[in-house]
């Protein structure tokens, strides 16, 4: 999925003011992402995704893989493991599993697995919106960090998202509770 051709970023004819997560869900701008939790686990954190990101997840479920895999697990298994860890409230390792792209207001963040990169932002503490998913190799080879960062900032403007729907700090503790 390319940042420049993303349908999410080009549709902006109607811009109601979005001040709650429910507004965004009701508008179809984001959907809740769930993974199976084992035993008595309960969701401790929330994950959302844009329609294009959900499409990317569907391709993963259908077996999409990068040209060369780094990880022992498949790309889909890596993402499931990361999502499970995130949603179940497990500890994520800063820089290795998540990091901000640039220290700024309303920062864009990246979730990482060996073969995939997921870009989005923390709408609230412990609540992440996934906007773009891509292969690690492609992101690094084409240096797509800036492009995805700009595309996500543009998407938030187009959705008319309230500043309260964006975590301001870039300290790991600002976005995730342990």
């Amino acid at each position, binding site marked *: 999925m390319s940042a420049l051709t993303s349908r999410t970023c080009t*549709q902006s*004819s*109607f811009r109601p003011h979005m001040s709650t997560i429910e507004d965004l*869900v*009701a*508008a*179809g*701008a984001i*959907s*809740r*992402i*769930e*993974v*199976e*939790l*084992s*035993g*008595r*686990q309960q969701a401790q954190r929330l994950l959302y*995704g844009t*329609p294009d990101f*959900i499409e990317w*997840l569907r391709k*993963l*479920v*259908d*077996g999409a893989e990068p040209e060369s895999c*780094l*990880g*022992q*697990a*498949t790309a*889909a*298994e*890596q*993402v*499931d*493991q*990361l*999502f*499970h*860890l995130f949603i179940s409230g*497990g*500890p994520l*390792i800063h820089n*290795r599993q998540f990091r901000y792209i640039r220290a700024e207001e309303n920062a864009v963040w990246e979730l990482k*697995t*060996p073969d995939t990169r997921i870009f989005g932002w923390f709408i609230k503490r412990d609540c992440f919106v996934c906007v773009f998913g891509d292969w690690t190799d492609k992101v690094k080879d084409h240096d797509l960090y800036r492009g995805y960062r700009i595309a996500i900032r543009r998407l938030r403007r187009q959705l008319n998202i309230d500043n309260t729907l964006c975590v301001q700090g870039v300290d790991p503790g600002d976005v995730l509770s342990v």
Partner: protein
Amino acid sequence: MFRGWIQVTSFQFDIGSRARNAGRFIGRVRNELLRALSERKKEEKLSQQELAKKLEVHRSLINRQLSGESNLTLRSLADLAWAMDMEISFELKKPAIEAGQNQSVTTSTIGHGQIKYIDGGKRRTLHCDKLVIAPLARGESTNL
């Protein structure tokens, strides 16, 4: 709602129980290694560089193994635990099923063709519920 979008309020990312077990187990092993190394780093300032020196390998190999970019064999897992002066505890057990807990999705459609269990979901894949890397007591040997 934005014109042309199909509204989906929730999406279940379901890769099937077999793939899920594999991915989460591999992830759990790596997270446990990272946790153990972080603990050792705090206690004894044991760095990746020192681990590499002890194992006589390049530091980048240790980094790739810990990040999941390089395969982790049972041998390399045992070596890393040894270099951190930790022991590995490994156990396979039947999952405990209690009333009211989440139920596994019992189909798999990824990589291995569709697998569908037809016994009402009672059959479940065995999985390792416990993998702990803990400091070795003096004179104790590593068992895996």
